[in-house]
């Protein structure tokens, strides 16, 4: 009886133990609002979706690139509606509370690049689709995109934190005793994180990181980009990193670092592809959203989808005067400055770039669907592409670099090739004085026309001011756009000061 009793008591206990051990996976419920990263990097499409995620934070923020690179410069002024924070850019009085200075979207992309870089080695070659060679572009794209992000940051803000390793679950850093320490990220305070991994670094370190990344990107972004058994859309040659984009960006970065020989050589790579395009179809890259026209003239840029949330692209909000189309008309072209820039009748770019429509001056690039100002974009058509790197940029960068290294002939040739491709006459050697300064002015003028309102003008001025040592060029050029003499003088004096060339940073405010 005692034995029976003992068994009676123990049986349920044993059953209970078995039960508890057997139900291990009972509690292993996959959260349904996301996917486990452990399940990724097993095939090519998973790898690719992480890659697409790297760019996702950038495309919706192109209006910031416009404010940083165009609104501050000489071609854009206040429209009929005033928004205090946008006016701060237009008037070069950007305050620390200005929400458009939030650089979070670039760091999101950087974090995702770092994540991809750390995890790519998990992807093992697998049959004929995923081979070591095919994997290269995915590495290259990380380096390219990260470099592009830091290129924006260093030129806009100066000294910023430089993150080249992923911070996710844990933060790894070297403590005062020189030991490597790992701490759970979420347990660290902002101050601790700022002290150990988020200290702003000298700009030279950032430039070095950019140069390093781009060297790798050029190496890794081969001609067979993303060839892993996908049907590669034409779009990808624009919206994903590629070899041409890497060379164009490398050339520009080299120029910014005063490496003129290198800039010329890198530009040469793009020039040899002969993709400058022709005058007759140049406008289609703006009047259509056709991928083929876009890649004819550009190597990297963002596209927009209206149906994702049915939100208008903000460039339409900024530039359109038509309220029912969602336009707020916050900015408009400064006609006198623009007219001085676009001063050649045969230039095919003039009509597409800006014009006066219904008594309103408008930046036509983002709202127009033709060259003669008749057809404007409806809200659902507000999907103008945003171009970041153009083939013509590489020609002009090479030209500028050749000019700086004393190869006047080379510079002259680049200038002429671009002129010709945009419908104008080649200069003959007697048309202009072939000195360094004149050529430099003409090359930058050409670049301004090619890239007008595309977030580049300010940086070109900054390049001339800092790298090419044209002292006061920012102040002189930008102050030109103000009609009021007091404002002109005030902005002129302010822009003589180096501090005013960089946007103020207060990241805690943007949280």
């Amino acid at each position, binding site marked *: 009886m005692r034995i029976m009793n003992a068994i009676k008591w123990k049986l349920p206990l044993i059953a209970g133990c078995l039960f508890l051990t057997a139900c291990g996976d*009972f509690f292993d419920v*996959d959260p349904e609002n*996301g996917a486990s990263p452990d399940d990724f990097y097993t095939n090519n499409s998973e790898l690719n979706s992480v890659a697409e995620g790297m760019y996702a934070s950038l*495309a919706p923020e192109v209006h910031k690139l416009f404010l940083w690179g165009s609104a501050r410069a000489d071609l854009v002024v206040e429209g009929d509606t005033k928004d*205090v924070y946008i006016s701060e850019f237009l008037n070069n009085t950007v305050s620390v509370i200005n929400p458009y200075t939030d650089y979070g979207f670039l760091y999101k992309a950087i974090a*995702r690049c770092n994540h991809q870089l750390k995890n790519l080695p998990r992807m093992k070659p697998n049959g004929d689709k995923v081979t070591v060679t095919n994997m290269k572009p995915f590495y290259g794209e990380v380096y390219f995109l990260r470099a592009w992000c830091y290129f924006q940051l260093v030129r806009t803000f100066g000294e910023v934190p430089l993150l080249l390793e992923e*911070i996710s679950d844990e933060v790894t850093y070297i403590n005062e005793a020189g030991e490597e320490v790992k701490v*759970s990220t979420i347990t660290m305070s902002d101050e601790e994180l700022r002290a150990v991994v*988020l200290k702003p670094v000298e700009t030279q370190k950032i430039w070095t990181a950019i140069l390093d990344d781009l060297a790798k990107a050029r190496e890794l972004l081969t001609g067979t980009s993303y060839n892993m058994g996908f049907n590669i859309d034409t779009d990808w040659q624009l919206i994903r990193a590629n070899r041409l984009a890497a060379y164009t960006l490398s050339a520009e970065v080299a120029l910014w670092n005063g490496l003129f020989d290198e800039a010329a050589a890198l530009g040469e790579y793009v020039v040899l592809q002969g993709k400058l395009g022709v005058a007759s179809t140049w406008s289609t890259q703006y009047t259509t959203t056709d991928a083929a026209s876009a890649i004819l003239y550009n190597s990297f840029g963002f596209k*927009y989808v209206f149906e994702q949330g049915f939100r208008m692209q903000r460039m339409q909000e900024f530039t359109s005067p038509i309220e029912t189309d969602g336009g707020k008309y916050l900015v408009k072209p400064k006609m006198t400055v623009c007219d001085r820039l676009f001063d050649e009748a045969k230039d095919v770019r003039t009509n597409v770039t800006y014009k006066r429509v219904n008594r309103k001056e408008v930046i036509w690039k983002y709202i127009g669907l033709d060259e003669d100002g008749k057809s404007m974009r409806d809200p659902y058509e507000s999907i103008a592409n945003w171009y970041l790197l153009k083939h013509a940029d590489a020609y002009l960068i090479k030209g500028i670099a050749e000019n700086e290294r004393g190869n006047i002939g080379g510079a002259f040739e680049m200038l002429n090739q671009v002129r010709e491709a945009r419908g104008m006459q080649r200069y003959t050697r007697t048309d202009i004085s072939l000195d360094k300064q004149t050529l430099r002015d003409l090359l930058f003028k050409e670049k301004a026309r090619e890239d007008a309102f595309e977030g580049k003008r300010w940086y070109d001025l900054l390049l001339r001011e800092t790298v090419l040592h044209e002292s006061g060029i920012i102040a002189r050029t930008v102050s030109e756009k103000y009609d009021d003499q007091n404002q002109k003088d005030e902005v002129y004096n302010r822009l003589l000061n180096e501090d005013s060339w960089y946007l103020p940073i207060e990241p805690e405010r943007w949280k």
Partner: protein
Amino acid sequence: MKMFSKYKILFLGFVCLGIPGWVGAQEVAKGRADTTLQQVVAVPQKEKNWSEIYSLRPMFLFDRGLMGEETGVYSAYNGFVGNAGLLMIRGVTSIHLNTSPCVFVDGLPVRQAPNISPFASGVYQSNLKFINPLDIFSMRVVKNGYENVFYGGRAANGIIEVEIDKGSIGTATIDLAMRMGFSEADFSPELMNAAEYRAYLYTMMQDRGYSAGDLQQNPLFDPTQPAYRHETYWPGELNQKGLFSDVHLKMKGGDGDTHYLFSIGYTSEGEILKEAKDQRINMRFNLDFKISPKIKIANLFSYNYGNNRFWGEGTDWLHNPLYVSATKAPFMSKDYYSEEGVKVDQLAGVDVLGKTNPAALMENMENKGLSNRIDALIRATWEVDSKTSANAEIMVTYNSLTEKLHQAAEGIAVDRYIERQNAKRSYSEYLMRWRTWVDRIGQLGDVWHYDAHAGLSMDMYNEKMIYGRTVNAASDEMESLDKGKFVDSLNNTRYEHNQMNIYLSGGLTWRNRLRLGASFNLERSSNFGPDGAWNLYAGAEIRWTAWQTPGERLELFGQYGRTGNNDVRGGYYARLYKATAYYTYGGVYLGNVRNDDLRPEYTHNYDAGVNMCLFKNLLEIGASYYYRKTVGLITQKSLPIEVGLDPQYENNGEVTNQGIELSLAVNPVRKENLTWSVFATISTLKNKVDNLKNGEVVETMDKFTSVARNGEELGSFYGYKIKGIYDRTEEIDVVKSDGSAYLPGDYRVEDVNDDHRINTLDRQIIGSPIPEFYGGFGTNLKWNGLSFAALFTYSYGNDVYNLFRQRMSMMSDYSNQSRDVLNRWISAEKPGDGWLPRAAYGDPSDNFATSDRWVEDGSYLRLKSIAVQYDVPLKSRAGFVKGIKLSVNCNNLWTLTGYSGFDPEVFSGVSAMQRGVDFGATPSPQSYIFGLNLSF
């Protein structure tokens, strides 16, 4: 396969522990009452007889009758039929998690409020529609932490235990209850009439830059125009008498071995807002039988069907019928007039001001819901001996809800790009719950008695939701989802939760005077990672009966218990990729980083009090104090932006709730044919948020903002304090947040930080939806066959944010407005009554941001119910009719309040951060219900 293995485990467990021989019990058992509830520790306070209350006072949904009767229970419902309301038991414990109590119906857990967000704005379909109040046998609100240890991670917001009626021994009885009635309420805002509105519109259009010439040409300002010469009070078109009907049939009976019950009920409730209606059919079947003298099997099965039509009565102003009506130009007509001025038999379309025709909205917009629910339970009870019993049960519930929306284009204003829309949402939840437990009682020596309870339960819960909306179908007739021209949104969510609990509790009683109890509940939940999955909830109590004679008693008690909230639905502990899109391509990014430490929010509950019964049951008093501290609130931490990660969830923050609860009952007359009693309850509540290290949590809904901030009540209203209106430019010494200048006529906002700039840093706490005290009082009188009952409820110290009034005063577009705007600020010479600022299209000075101007005292005293019932004396009991009862019940007959809106009792959402906001939803109506009960 994985699913299958889970079933296997459950089945195995059921078989193993359900077989008597496997259960560890040796001694002689005692027969136990058949209760589906937890082993109930002796509860000295007299339980309310809810089945009598519901029979006397028909309640549309049973949870609507709790406030006033029970201490510690606060509720707020609007007149929205079939909607859940706010039900708060001893305060509010969470910022981001579910804050509604969990209801256990025969052991089956159901959240009082839905788990999903509203399909149409403001619509929270009640989860409790599947219970017909007439099927309730008993109900208990479990508030104290000690008893709630049993419910572990579900108990942070209190528990309501409901036991459904079952068959009983005796001859078969049939009860037929029929009720009919109607409800009505006035919800007519005071609006400008046609002439006043026309003058106002003129100034608004002038403000927009129209010249006098333009305006003179505009037919809107010509009162002879056939289309514009009317005087329409649009909201008047919405009101109707809500009709109520309810038929309920219950049959039950049984012999010594077998008991049965079958009930079927049909309820139809019409809202006082046209077209809105809720219909329900509830069916229940119960069969209990013995398979041996010691083994009893109980079966319960119920099926419920519901369908309803509803309106989004929340902040979707374009489709909120009252708001659309109230803002429509009163000089227009719902009918279409031809250019010649002939009335055409057709509804007018969207007017030249871009406004919907409210009549077209009522006709061309349709929201429908359809629900099906099945519950089943089988329980085996083995009475091992007189002291020990063993039980095992398995229950399954499946609930599905389908909601549909069709919005035609005719007469309804386009919403951005949406001309027409068809939307559909399907939601289903499934729960399988298995439980086994052993109860044992016994004696230790001569003076000590013990009781013990041990058990194990496993829950497997699965919830799915799919939502789709397509827009701009080719025609108004195309009502199905697939007819839309393009997909506007498509959403699919799934949530799975598996949970296990191991219970152990027991008590020692000394001479029926002193009781010591302890309770443990070890819970494992799949909502947390490895370090947070196992959680122990534990509690202890001491009770001392100081004095006891027949009819008199004094008992003191002290309790502690830890409960929790494990309803964390985001996999926040896990490292997760989230979906994103780049151009048309899908991408992913690391959205969640690992947080192994994430745990449920724990609530420590301390209770102490006294229960008294004096003067031979003349006086019954309950007095207690509770202190509840919830720690480890799940809040979001924003990392520095350079880290590039989204905000992450972690346990951080505390909230305390404390209060005193008093209940008093006086029973002055207790004769056989005459009884009379008077009762009153009062509960106080103090709530405070603390230790939020990630900073305050701010939520905004339309023009309403709330905050969870250290030292303040959770969900406090957060906005500006208005100190008047600027008359002249010289008086203005502050600038707007963006640095631009205010103008005369703008509100003078208090500049809290004195930086001469009005921005979010100047927001202050401007009110709180949490009452200081609340409760009810009433009386019950029985004289022969006549019963009379009255119940008053009250709430004091809660604020209401009158968003509807704010919206009706904004003067920022061409909407008709409240009559208040006639006294707005126009100039320094015509400053109006100082209440409203200048009218300005688009509100460029943000005068109508959240502010104290719209906060009102929501205190009220309400005659909730008066009921009279007459039990017709039947001369011969031999006939087949055994009883006839006639009853009348009137609800909400009278309300005393200073609140300016339709009803101070407002329900705006279940989230802790969205309470006490008045959207102008239909108020709780006055209702008159007549009943006839027949027993056979």
